[in-house]
């Protein structure tokens, strides 16, 4: 009885299997490339004006709330209107090229379009005011903005990451006086955190309820 397949067929089969493997991995890579977030962690986001938190927060020591003024009262921390920029920049660096869009926006009354850096899905209802009221520091989510010449995301913002804190807030809580400080560290975070949960009346029973963030 003769062989049905010629011995050379073995090579073809191996090549075909290799091709399938290559195609499959290419497809996975392409899919990952197409569906990941617009900006990776640690990737500086280009903005119409190269606004530097490093300069404003790190060098000048301006409080977060000077610009993000609704962070204690509303869900949205607040992006400053151009008028806030102009409190200083009507006098300072008025002739700098990098500030030109700001000055033009002010003079012509046309708003600037900033690229969002921290973006959550539409079915997540995050509220800044309650986090600030309960002792979550800005740094815990936004990282060391005082070291960022251009703002970038430093945390994954995935649900797992949110739950890490919602399951055990004592790991991250700060006294309210230190919320807006950068680089603050507790001596004994665990002990302090548990004390703060009591002091700020945090109902840990419901922190991992779906309804807290999803509506």
């Amino acid at each position, binding site marked *: 009885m003769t062989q049905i397949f010629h011995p050379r067929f073995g090579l073809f089969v191996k090549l075909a299997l290799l091709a399938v493997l290559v195609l499959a991995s290419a497809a996975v890579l392409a899919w990952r490339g197409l569906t990941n977030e617009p900006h990776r962690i640690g990737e500086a986001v280009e903005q119409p004006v190269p606004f530097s938190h490093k300069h404003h927060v790190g060098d000048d020591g301006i409080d977060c709330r000077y610009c993000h003024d609704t962070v204690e009262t509303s869900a949205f921390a607040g*992006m400053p209107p151009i008028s806030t920029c102009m409190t200083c920049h009507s006098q300072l660096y008025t002739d700098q090229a990098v500030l030109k869009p700001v000055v033009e926006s002010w003079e012509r*009354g046309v708003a*600037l379009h900033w690229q969002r850096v921290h973006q959550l899905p539409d079915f997540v209802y995050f509220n800044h005011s309650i986090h600030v009221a309960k002792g979550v520091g800005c740094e815990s989510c936004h990282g060391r903005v005082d070291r960022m010449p251009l703002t970038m995301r430093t945390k994954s913002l995935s649900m797992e990451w949110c739950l890490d804190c919602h399951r055990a807030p004592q790991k991250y809580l700060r006294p309210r006086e230190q919320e807006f400080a950068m680089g603050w560290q507790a001596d004994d975070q665990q002990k302090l955190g548990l004390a703060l949960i009591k002091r700020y009346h945090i109902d840990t029973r419901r922190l991992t309820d779906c309804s807290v963030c999803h509506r």
Partner: protein
Amino acid sequence: MSGPLDALRTRLADARGPHYWRALEELVEQPAWCARLSEAFPQLSQLEPQLGRRGFLKLLGASLALAGLGACSRPPQEEIVPWVRRPDQLPPALPRFYASTLACAGDVAGVLVETHQGRPTKIEGNPAHPTSLGATTPAMQAAVLELWDPDRSQAPVHKGVASSWDAFGDEVRTLATRFAADGRGLHVLSGRLDSPTLAVQREAWLKRFPGARWHAYEAVDEDNALAGARLAFGEPLRARYRFDRAQVVLALEADFLGAMLGALRHGRDFIGGRDPQAGAFSRLYVMEASPTLTGAKADHRWALGSAHIGMAALELGELLGVPGVHATQSSGLSTRRLRALAQDLDAQHGSSLVLAGRTQPAWVHALAHLLNEALGNVGHTVEYYAPPEPWTSSAQGLRELTAAMADGQVDTLLILDGNPVYATPADAQFAAHLAKVPRRIHLGLYRDETARACQWHLPRTHALEAWSDLRAADGTASAVQPVIAPLYDCRSEHELLALFLGDLQSPRARVQGTWQVDEAAWRAILQNGVIPHSAPPAQPPRVDRGFLEQVTMPEDAPGLELLFAPDPTVWDGRYANNGWLQECPKPLTTLTWSNVALVSPELALAHELKNGDALELRIDGRHTQAPVWVMPGQAARSVTVYLGYGRRHAGRVGGQLGFDAYALRSTDAPWRSDGLRINRTGAQLALATTQRHHAMEGREPVRTSTLEAFRADPAFAQEHAQPPPSLYPDRLHGEYAWGMSVDLNACIGCGACTVACQAENNIPVVGAEEVERGREMHWIRIDRYYEGDARAPRIHHQPVPCMHCEHAPCEVVCPVGATVHDAEGLNVQVYNRCVGTRFCSNNCPYKVRRFNFLQYSDLHTETLKAQRNPDVSVRNRGVMEKCTYCIQRIQTAHIAADREGRRIADGEVLTACQAVCPTQAIVFGDQQDPASAVSRQKASPRHYTLLEELNTRPRTTYLAAIRNPHPALEDDA
């Protein structure tokens, strides 16, 4: 439906105790119907589209491939666009409320408009306004959808070509010179003059153009009330009813809880006087031809032909011994009933009330005034006041205008916000006469039938975009303020008139000028929403009995009478393009997206008619075809048709629906005509009704008793003192335990909760075809049950939202944990986890879960995006959804309270359905707190749980309804 009445009689003879049914077919146990009813998902018997095996496989393959491709997109890069200069210092992300006033479906009530970053998204009632007291009607809820309707007219149109207000300004100058002399030939057609500022402008108009004529026409008119007041008092006085003071009420075809002006206030006052635990409990008698919301709530509802109601009132007057009142004909109402009624009214001298509806002739209105006077009610349960704005006859206005148009006297006709080409009786031949008018100008929200018949069409501002003022049914005036700049290039009617008058005031100053108040007072008015001391004082008029001589009895015609009624949701047709109102099941019929001709079971039996049969209606040479609806409780020889359908140019939503009942209407008898002839055509018309959806298998979902029986056995509705043991573990309890209580004794079945929920929770509209498949998305539905004889059934309403069961059957069957409990007892639905197996819905005994079978939410129309509540996710295809107890409102209150480190106060969280309810039937709160309103409600002896035997331990529970029949008529209710 062969012999339904015979079957019914034998069936009812066997039945014992209260037996509830929802559809006539159910009562007579038609096999086909029963098969459908026993299916948990009748909609699944018809998969869409109708597929063969090959088509199915093709679609399956394609959807797999497309699902893969569809997932291949990254989240969109969002932008943040801050202000250049922020207008004020309030946080931009918090909603703001502005007090304003809306006139919807003829009724006027104060509202608070919720805006999110400048976008109006929701209407709430204004608690400070006397005709709202915090409640609104379904039409008012739907006003935001009307504002954002993409079909609204956006720019002036001249002879079918887009034009501009500048071009129209030139036309105005030409016309101003043309009519400079005396204004002869210049006619204006407006709606009812509800706005004092419009009345002032009318005066100015007639002064400036002395030869001009001003006509007011409203399709749903109050002419009979006007003529009745003239007969009785010699002057046009309006009545202000005080139902909270009335112990016995007799409504002569007066739907004071539904279609009558001031219904919101009436509902609150009337239900306030019917607390079974309190001492007094009022009694309501209703005589009407066609069942209404008021009739459904009556302790005694007597179905009489519309023409016989006046005779019954005369007989009653005679029994009461009112001088001068003699009944010449018998109404057919039994003496036993009349005597009991007369005795009841007499016993409550000074705290009874008789009122007549808009469909009753003028003399019945006058007779009602006379009876109130004889019973000593004037000044107690009814007051009269002289309306400050001119109150003119609508039919007279139309008649004069059509006569002038026919004679060629009209040179220029200015139509201020109305659609007379559609909404006028057929015999007025408005369209034909209008064509003879050389210059026709129309101001309106839509490019409707009238707009197309005019050379100029001008877009009108929406009520939420303009300054105005309105006077409510009780005489209170309130301001209308814009909450958003006009979306399009449009003007209000005040601005249009000002253009002609050369009045250069700002729209705000014009309205402020009407009230002559300083800036501080005006700001207070805008903040509170009510103009203080604007209600005219009550007058004590005497009834002139002279009208009794002129009472003309209609001949006792053996034929059928044809009755007209405004549609419960789309009214006279003006809301035809509003999807929320089209899909809100109409009270009692539970129909959506269509109107019908209501016939009685007897008439259906005689002509072998069943629901959906096309019927040819003929009267005085006018005719049309209408689908039949067999209405239990309809008077035997009365056929009722609803206005508002058959629109030809309503827009993408409202076109080609139902039939045009104006084709049967006549100017002289707009509400009732004799000599109707009907003819079955053999055709069948599809009707989208929800009455058979979500069946609960006859397990006594509603519980009722009489006042006497309740006093003897207060806990009649309760089954178990203690909840039976359960295998499920008891849940951990959080700081709050949210619960809801629905008082069936207070619910009047108006459907405002359904529409309010739709507005608050971004619930999509699905369309007539999908409703027919049982796929409507409403999170709270009003179940309507009949009890007893099909010719005179008792009618019950039951709002059913999610029960938020503590032992929820839906949760254990979800394979992906998309429906789970939270610590505070909410059964939450997690959209981002849901994969659409629908197991939860299958396992829900209350049938309150809704599935997005198709992509129902419109994600592309820009203006509709702006309407949505930003605090609630917009759901996509393939996701289950249901009532959340307005979780966004709970969380907002939670965050506000937690931020301040305090507890959420009782009443701080109002669900959308609770806030809108005119009779406060729905109470929501923390049931762990014994002092909360909801705990106090649940402690009532009338408290019961729906399907308690399933031991699901729902957080939503009910209070049984109580009726108060006359002791002598207990067996004859």
